[in-house]
């Protein structure tokens, strides 16, 4: 039969970007272990609304672990204690009766808090806008099977492309580096034959934008890989470093950017 639990929540409340913010404690009762973490927060919201208080604002949308919208640090870990899981796919059966759960927003300088647990992740979009694309104007494509791509390369590209852009890697990194995010996109596109034409340009532009947005450098700590809900491996950063170095050398002799 369904098991339930009582919980103490310590939730970060911050009215807006300028507010200082603080932890507020709430008690919750009879949470089903089959509920998802966000459903637990829904119940908290309803409880707060009933008392005439504003509910906790948090980002969420698909609730099936793919849109990348949910973003909260649970007991010190982005997306919570389970490996390879987004907050929306985390279920209460991983917690126990009487537990205290601390919930805070992504903590990273480039991601200012908008309200409570909601942060501004638009710097990630801007990294993509600077080079995270393969130019293929609608109408200009050749037949899809015109160029065979080995399964190995296609699979590698897919592993990299699995990134959901949630920003957990940045939140987990003591340097607030966006290297894993950037590396995943660079690895995806640079590894495919279609992406070769813009390879050097892409590597340079994306890293330049990343630095310009105020993300920290990578010092090979590896927290990003541990926090990534999609298992993007650290190797991709090595790939980015290689591609970036080659692009810099080429750029020195013949500018691409």
């Amino acid at each position, binding site marked *: 039969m369904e098991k339930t639990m009582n919980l103490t929540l310590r939730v970060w409340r911050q009215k807006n970007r300028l507010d200082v913010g603080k932890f507020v404690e709430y008690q919750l009762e009879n949470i089903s272990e089959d509920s998802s973490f966000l459903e637990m927060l829904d119940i908290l919201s309803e409880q707060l609304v009933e008392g005439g208080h504003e509910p906790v604002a948090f980002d969420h949308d698909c609730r099936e672990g793919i849109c990348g919208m949910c973003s909260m640090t649970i007991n010190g870990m982005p997306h919570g204690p389970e490996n390879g899981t987004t907050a929306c796919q985390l279920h209460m059966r991983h917690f126990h009766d009487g537990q205290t759960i601390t919930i805070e927003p992504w903590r990273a300088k480039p991601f200012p808090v908008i309200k409570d647990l909601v942060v*501004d992740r638009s710097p990630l979009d801007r990294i993509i806008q600077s080079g995270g694309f393969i130019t293929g104007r609608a109408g200009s494509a050749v037949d899809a*099977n015109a160029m065979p791509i080995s399964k190995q390369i296609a699979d590698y590209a897919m592993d990299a492309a699995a990134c959901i852009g949630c920003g957990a890697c940045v939140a987990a990194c003591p340097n607030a580096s966006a290297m894993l995010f950037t590396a995943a996109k660079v690895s995806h596109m640079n590894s495919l034959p*279609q992406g070769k034409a813009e390879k050097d340009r892409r590597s340079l532009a994306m890293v330049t934008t990343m630095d310009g947005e105020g993300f920290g450098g990578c010092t090979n700590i590896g927290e990003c890989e541990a926090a990534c809900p999609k298992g993007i491996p650290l190797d991709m950063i090595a790939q980015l470093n290689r591609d970036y170095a080659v692009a810099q050398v080429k750029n020195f002799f013949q500018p691409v950017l």
Partner: protein
Amino acid sequence: MNLDSKIPEGPLENKWSSHKFNMKLVNPANRRKYHVIVVGSGLAGGAAAASLAEQGYNVSCFCYQDSPRRAHSIAAQGGINAAKNYQNDGDSVKRLFYDTVKGGDYRAREANVYRLAEVSADIIDQCVAQGVPFAREYGGYLANRSFGGAQVSRTFYARGQTGQQLLLGAYAALSKQIGLGKVKMYNRHEMLDVVKVDGHAKGIIVRNMISGEVSRHAGDCVVLATGGYGNVFFLSTNAQGCNVTAAYRAHKRGAGFANPCYTQIHPTCIPVHGDQQSKLTLMSESLRNDGRVWAPMSADTAKQIREGKLNPNDVAEDDRDYFLERKYPSFGNLAPRDISSRAAKEACDEGRGVATTGLGVFLDFRDAIKRDGQKTIEERYGNLFEMYQCITGDNPYETPMMIFPAVHYTMGGLWVNYNLESTIPGMFVGGEANFSDHGANRLGASALMQGLADGYFVLPYTVGNYLGEQGVAAAGQVTTDHPAFAEVEADVKGRIEKFMSINGTESPRSFHKRLGNIVWEKCGMARSKEGLEEAIKEIQALKKEFWSNLRVVGDADSLNPELERAGRVADFIEFGELMCRDALMREESCGGHFRVEHQTDDGEAKRDDDNFTFAGVWEYQGDDTDPQLHKEPLIYENVKLVTRSYK
């Protein structure tokens, strides 16, 4: 209401190419004088915004999420159909067209479906060129799998994340145009109304969800690609934010709403676990390539399983009813969605359901694992199995999955002509938000196809045609200073103030849940005259209660999810009534619309082609007046209407 479908003359095969030739063009140097508003950044909206910008138009694109990459197209799992015939198994444009028309239970417009099939192959080329990492064979060529309602293998896929990869392709193209300044992107902005000038759509009113600021945006035309209305049911596989507001607001400004009762209930979702649940999760239809759907033969066995006294693996072969294979031997587990869903419901209605609630059947991989080995199954569906285990706590490699139908997609939507233009001139509608291609039931792997077809290959032509017809002298002439903008903006602001000032006791979420219960019970998988009439009364009562007892905490000039939900639920309530009216009007069963009064002796849907071969289009008449029904007759010149059989 003008329901001229504008289907081009000539044989089916030539309609689109001759139409492309006959449409007006805009000189490349003049395109930059025009400004197009695109609402929604999913497959249809994102692709349209990117493609129009590539052509040289200035585009403003709006989405309610924090990034265009999060649109709910991203959650599509299984794949995308295309008539490539890479498998040499008899596929062709004509066969994809035929399958789609038949799959839609002969309630779609022939010419639109044919065009969809025709451009399907271009979509795959386009996506590969963008770097979408589709699954490949060892030889390096693209792999395919099978989906429901087809006897050829024409579905392209990227693991269980096809929607994600296709959306990221469109997002990348869009991002490039944002970077170049051709697209101005408005994240976290919700469209709350459309502005008409001299009868043409010339702008929108939006609310900045962070600051609460309500602002006006003018353009030379408006493209809505705002998705479906599945969340009217409260529980669905849609994302939490998916809503009908943009489409419904447009409807109230004069856009006809077609076939709202055509909703798709997807057969393979994870069963409901309890009343704390906020959403349902889909398990891709692709799983039915290898999984076998069954329920216990006897209600007694089912009861023992429900009570945990019997392990499903111990159920003897004789006591398993592989009901899809039994009822539909030629399509078996890949019978179309509407049919599979009803079969599962039937088994549960007979008391043979499993899961704690009795609302579930098995999807069993035992035989596939025995045949192909666990490794192969893992390669094909690994991420889906993980997702299932994460949600339910059960390991599907060891114990059969449990599934139950859930609301997944809505075939109905704003009425559009062949140019995807609604009954408001200058307002185009793409993707799930329009009604045109899927009839009364959508086949698997066809939503991604339609979204991208509209976005990459149809709207860029037809929007250009409209702008060309308006003439370059008209470009950019309407500005937000026009009095029509002030008027609509005042309406929007008044509505927000109203929500904030009711000061009742019930939350928007609670109203939403109650609405969902009504429509799921009475306008869900099985509908009856009596039930629908009750539902309409109940929804009207709910609407009164909503407007007198709603409570929205917080304020209107900052991020306020309660206020956002209040606005969406207000529209869902009115829309829910429209959906029930449409279901009541349609005295037949077809596709996802099943009226219990209209079924064959063996419980299959019974169409009434003589009286109902039309699209039912509703015109808004005012808050206190019943909407008016108009009919667009569906003319089948190339397909013979027959009883849809998958036996």
